[in-house]
């Protein structure tokens, strides 16, 4: 083919594509999303990431899912009861079909749980689950090795996969069910779930297109989105610009600096959600002797103005925190509010013999949490008032985690979101005495250790009486508050925005997984 012909073909092609696609943009039920990330893979067990979990809620359904108020909502499981201390029996929804046409049964749930236990990312979360057994087509029994009160919490991660579809061998002789980290596995490219959307086209990092699944079981939902085009736009400013210019209808992660602009824009609605990710600091007791003294840790906490940071630096885009657990979590203790009293902090420093203060080195990321570097700078200035001189180093995420793992600085910033949406998880990762065997205290940078608290949380984790358990966790929060094992700053909010008529408010939640199957679009210009 000559070059001229190619050129001619390209002009014609471009014209055709342009006009052919224009009408579909205007059609009512198409949703164009600009998320900060697209799913890394179609294999929902390959990577535990925000992108993959959001995708899981689009192409699959969990057994149960969280409501906005942290209650459990039945999805593929309709009823559940604790048969004995370690067994839960779940009744499954009838008449549910997979995208492949296969019928959804209890065998699929068992198969999925067994696969989760093989996934490097999920193995830890599903450690307490010993086995799962199909009693009949619509009944499944899940057994845990010890009494485990969080089975429903982790059931929000059980998105049943089509066991028949993912069983067998590919043409190359590979197992279809194999989980291959970042590999070219069958499950990372092929899809059969029960969810409201099927994928029609996908180019990694460029675009994913979905269409509504015709045989979707949930016919009660008012969701009317029939088609979705998801374009990953990682740059904050570009994402906001894409929404404001009408290139997309819905975006996530509106940055704090653009909140006012988006709020004031015509035809665009901003929805803020109280988040559950705690942001804070850890003090390295291995390197700084003074931090081993609870009075010094209290002084540090008292010197930091959480309200001020949330108000001025975050412009209200955060809720100041005095504990790990946000409202709605099992162990949230309403008595534990942020403390701020510089005079008292100075007294405590003097009592501990550090009136003259000392010098420390602090590290923080500069592209991980909202305004992270500025927050660290503000905290450094606040600590200067009680004579703690801070040498602050901020760095991009790629360098931050290796540096964090080294534990060779005196104070470090970290944010944490509990995978189980439960209080105990914060303690286990951030404040438990470090134990390499069990993995406890994996992110306990400061080597803080209070065995009493650890014991209380561990006991709570095998207490199946929810009321009793909550009481124990509230107590643990109070003990950590008193002992200052972690400096809490705030829970970072989430912000979404959508064009007029795209009713995102009911479907977004603190978990950051919009339930798009239930999204309603009412465009005024609909015919």
């Amino acid at each position, binding site marked *: 083919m000559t*070059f001229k012909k*190619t*050129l001619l*073909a*390209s*002009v014609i*092609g*471009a*014209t*055709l*594509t*342009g006009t052919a*696609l224009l009408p579909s943009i205007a059609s009512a039920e198409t949703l164009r999303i600009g998320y900060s990330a697209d799913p890394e*893979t179609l294999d929902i067990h390959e*990577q*535990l*990431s925000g992108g993959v979990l959001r995708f899981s809620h689009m192409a699959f359904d969990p057994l149960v899912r969280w409501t906005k108020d942290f209650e459990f909502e039945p999805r593929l499981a309709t009823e559940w009861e604790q048969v004995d201390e370690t067994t839960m029996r779940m009744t499954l929804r009838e008449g549910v079909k997979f995208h492949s046409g296969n019928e959804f049964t209890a065998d699929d749930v068992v198969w999925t749980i067994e696969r989760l236990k093989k996934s*490097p*990312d999920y*193995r*830890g*979360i599903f450690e307490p689950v010993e086995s799962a057994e199909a009693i009949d087509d619509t009944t499944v029994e899940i057994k845990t090795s010890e009494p485990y009160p969080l089975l429903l919490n982790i059931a929000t991660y059980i998105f049943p996969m089509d066991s028949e579809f993912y069983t067998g061998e590919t043409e190359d002789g590979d197992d279809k069910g194999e989980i291959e*980290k*970042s*590999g*070219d596995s069958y499950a*990372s*490219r092929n899809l059969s779930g029960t969810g409201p959307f099927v994928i029609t086209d996908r180019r*990694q*990092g460029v675009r994913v297109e979905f269409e509504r699944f015709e045989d979707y079981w949930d016919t009660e939902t008012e969701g009317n989105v029939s088609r979705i085009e998801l374009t990953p736009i990682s740059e904050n400013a570009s994402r906001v610009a894409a929404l404001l210019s009408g290139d997309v209808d819905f975006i996530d992660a509106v940055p704090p600096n653009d909140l006012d602009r988006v709020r004031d824009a015509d035809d665009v609605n901003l929805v803020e959600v109280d988040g559950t990710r705690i942001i804070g600091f850890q003090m390295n007791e291995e390197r700084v002797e003074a931090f081993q003294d609870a009075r010094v840790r209290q002084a540090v906490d008292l010197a930091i103005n959480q309200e001020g940071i949330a108000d001025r630096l975050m412009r209200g885009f955060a809720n100041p925190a005095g504990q790990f657990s946000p409202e709605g979590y099992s162990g949230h203790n309403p008595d534990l509010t942020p403390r701020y009293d510089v005079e008292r902090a100075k007294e405590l420093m003097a009592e501990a013999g550090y009136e003259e203060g000392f010098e420390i080195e602090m590290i923080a990321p500069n592209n991980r949490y909202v305004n992270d570097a500025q927050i660290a700078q503000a905290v450094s200035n606040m600590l200067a008032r009680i004579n703690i001189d801070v040498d602050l180093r901020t760095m*991009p*995420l*790629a*360098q931050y*985690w*290796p540096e964090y793992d080294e534990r060779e600085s005196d104070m470090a910033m970290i944010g*944490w979101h509990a*995978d189980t949406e439960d209080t105990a998880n914060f303690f286990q*990762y951030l404040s438990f005495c470090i134990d*390499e065997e069990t*993995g406890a205290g*994996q*992110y306990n940078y400061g080597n803080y250790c209070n065995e009493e608290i650890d014991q209380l949380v561990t006991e709570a984790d095998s207490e199946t009486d929810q009321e009793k358990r909550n009481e124990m966790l509230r107590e643990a929060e109070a003990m950590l508050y008193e002992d200052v094992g972690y400096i809490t700053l705030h829970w970072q909010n989430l912000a979404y925005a959508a064009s007029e008529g795209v009713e995102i408010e009911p479907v977004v939640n603190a978990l950051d997984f919009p339930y798009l199957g239930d999204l309603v679009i009412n465009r005024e210009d609909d015919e």
Partner: protein
Amino acid sequence: MIAFLIKRLMHAVLVMFIISLLAFAIQDNLGDPIQQMVGQSVPESEREELRERFGLNDPFLVQYTRFAKNALQGDFGYSYFYREPALDVIARHLPATLELVFASTLIIVVFSVPIGVYSAIKPRSLISRFFMGISIVGISIPVFLTAIVHHAATVYPLNPRGNDGSIAV
């Protein structure tokens, strides 16, 4: 002529070698790949296992030699982002690159060379001055700006949604 070509080829090989070495040396500063591959709560033992599997624990020289050996045999490794061999990714984008190369070569041969010859012979003629003026403007404006203006003026109105990266849709 042949000696010249061989010399150029040797240069290219040397440059490629140095670039590959540099690229390999700085990759540690781009962050821990395992960190980006797994969730935050994944235990260290799992991470270690992955590091071992991907050969990230081997010394620099071992890793580089492995890479170089495969590259010389036409195996450029595996793209974890696209989940396919890197060579396939390159091959997919190659037609677009070649199209651009051919198109610009064509413009040079048909227009630029004759104009250049003419301007050299008759530097003072009005036509020569006109084209030299345009050349100066063309060279002075940064290419990314030219590209944006060109894109907005011609490509976007025809096909606002973009395409596969190939000129021919």
